[in-house]
């Protein structure tokens, strides 16, 4: 018998056989769409135990709250599928938010928004160029960019909060259908569109290919640079969209916006089932993961959990989700022969 990885693998399965059999088809379903199961379970629990959770107002609140991380997560998904990463999205959010609020009074809402979005896309373009032309690793490049873009945000905005009285910007940001703000709707539309693009367009297939096996993609004639740079631009665009949305909603911005958002966005992407090693992923699941994180936070607020404990619970939830994901991946791989 040939020596197999499972023989010397430190994570050799020690779990009882019955768990494997009980899994089966259900396990496969859970394995692929586990984020929706988690979301459903948590939501169901809160639905039953907290009457406030059920109110339309609360639901709309949750949807708005998760939108910003969701924007980032949706933008990150194609990039991570292509086996890159963008740590600068939080800082791009801050920069765009400050730009749109700072320029709205002098230039008008639309030009300010355009400049903010353009800024995000330019940062994405710059990062993409450095990664692909100079062949540097995206983690380092975007880590440096995270630091630098935050500096640019402070350069533009200074220490203070910026605010605007531009009516069209304010009305755009507060536009809503009853209690539901337009921002989550935009997020959902983008999630669906991005997912469709990833699955059904040539560009999307190529992104998967680049992440799955880069040399094979090169050999297949795919122009790697084009798609990776495009993915970076998309990530930058989503981040700046998040910044514009946040600033428009609040009619204010400061350079500290979006601190640590990138980490939670990446967490959402991973929780949504996208592997950081690339090759597979889903934008809709990333949105679901962002939503789940918001539901969790909201649930804890409703249960009057002290804010400090919320932080602890979010961290533990992250680790738990990772454990579940690891367990299910391991089981799936073991089933297919390791």
């Amino acid at each position, binding site marked *: 018998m040939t*020596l197999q*990885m*499972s023989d*010397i*693998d*430190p*994570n050799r399965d020690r779990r009882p056989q019955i768990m494997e059999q009980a899994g089966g088809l259900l396990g496969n379903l859970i394995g692929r769409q586990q984020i929706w199961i988690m979301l459903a379970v948590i939501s169901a629990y809160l639905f039953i135990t907290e009457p406030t959770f059920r109110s339309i107002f609360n639901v709309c609140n949750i949807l708005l709250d998760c939108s910003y991380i969701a924007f980032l997560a949706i933008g990150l998904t194609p990039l991570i599928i292509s*086996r890159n*990463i963008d740590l600068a999205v939080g800082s791009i959010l801050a920069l765009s938010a400050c730009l749109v609020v700072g320029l709205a009074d002098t230039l008008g809402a639309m030009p300010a928004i355009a400049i903010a979005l353009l800024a995000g896309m330019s940062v994405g373009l710059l990062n993409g160029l*450095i990664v692909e*032309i*100079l*062949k*540097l*690793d*995206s*983690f*380092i*490049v975007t*880590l*440096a*960019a*995270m*630091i*630098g*873009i*935050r*500096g*640019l945000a*402070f*350069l533009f905005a200074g220490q203070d909060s910026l605010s605007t009285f531009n009516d069209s910007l304010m009305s755009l940001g507060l536009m809503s259908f009853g209690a539901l703000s337009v921002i989550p709707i935009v997020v959902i539309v983008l999630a669906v569109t991005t997912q469709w693009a990833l699955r059904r367009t040539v560009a999307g297939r190529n992104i998967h290919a680049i992440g799955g096996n*880069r*040399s094979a993609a*090169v050999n297949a004639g795919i122009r*790697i640079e084009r798609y990776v740079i495009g993915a970076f631009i998309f990530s930058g665009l989503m981040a700046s969209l998040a910044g514009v949305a946040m600033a428009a909603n609040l009619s204010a911005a400061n350079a500290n916006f979006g601190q640590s958002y990138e*980490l939670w966005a*990446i*967490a959402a992407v*991973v929780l949504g089932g996208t592997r*950081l*090693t690339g090759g597979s992923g889903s934008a809709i699941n990333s949105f679901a993961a962002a939503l789940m994180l918001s539901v969790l936070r909201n649930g804890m607020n409703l249960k009057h959990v*002290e*804010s*400090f*404990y*919320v*932080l*602890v*619970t*979010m*961290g*533990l*939830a*992250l*680790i738990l989700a*990772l*454990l579940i994901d*690891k367990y299910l991946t391991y089981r799936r*791989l073991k089933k297919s022969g*390791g």
Partner: protein
Amino acid sequence: MTTTDRAMEPAQQVAPPRFLERKNWRAYTGQIGLLVPIVIFVIAVQAVAPQFLTISNILQVLRQAAAPGIIAIAVTYVVIAGRFDLSVGSILSLTSVLIVSYTNVYGPLTAVCIGLAAGVAVGVVNGFLVGYLNLNSVIGTLGTLSTVQGLTLIFTGGTNVAVKTVDAGGWFAFLGRGYIFGIPTPIIIFALITLVFEVLLKRTTFGRRLFAVGGNETASAFSGIRTGRVVFLTYVISGLMAACAAIIFSSRVMAAQNDGGSGYELTVLAGIILGGTSILGGSGSTIRSAVGVIILAFIQNGLLVAGLPYYAQWIVTWAVIILAVSADMIARRAGGAS
């Protein structure tokens, strides 16, 4: 089944960009590439602000670089093993808060022991999750970061703490504020730890195994190296060193803030990258990481002393990291020593 945590691994081997294939003098770029801009920078700052290169300023900068430097030494181990540790900043916060609070109750010796134990405990948790359970290190340590941050806030109840009872002449104060032969104690401690860890890395079997695990984890596992244990130990060391840095940190100011360490992981990572350690794992040196952190500290200090606003540091740090890694990449591709 691959269990490597190469989350941020760049593209698999691709041909270097055309324009680099010409001359071999580029091989030296890695070594002298960064030195030239640094020399220019130092001269420029010195011209504008002559107090930059004074002994007192240099010692001040080195003293401030001691805490992140010590952490960077330990995180270098983690990076060599192919993982990341994002929780070091919050471990610093937690342990400094613990040390300061318990000094008031039990005295410095017990407090320091409690702090070290706490750091090791978090390191053990990290090591278990990433080393033995093989969770993704970025998300896993993000979860720990969040949890530890929350625990810190719970412990202090949101307030910052200060030492009230220890007199200014005790050994505890000496650690942060004392001088040995005219050099501040933190610098001496930093230098000693760097040397000890470098020897540990290059001359012991543990160090050998560390490089092996980072270089090729599957091969190491097949060679009989307990990869899980090696990774576990790096995280324990990382937690321990974060606690040591906290001792020096809190001894200096005799107080601790809830978020005293937030953002440290960025500085540490930037210093490690600047020092030339590959984030893919498998190579690196604690001395180079220490140098990287020191260079970063001098750049930031130089910009401040020259009168530039605080955000200039970040923008320059961004450029420096990109330049440093490009220089290293050019040297590597040209086949020279890096």
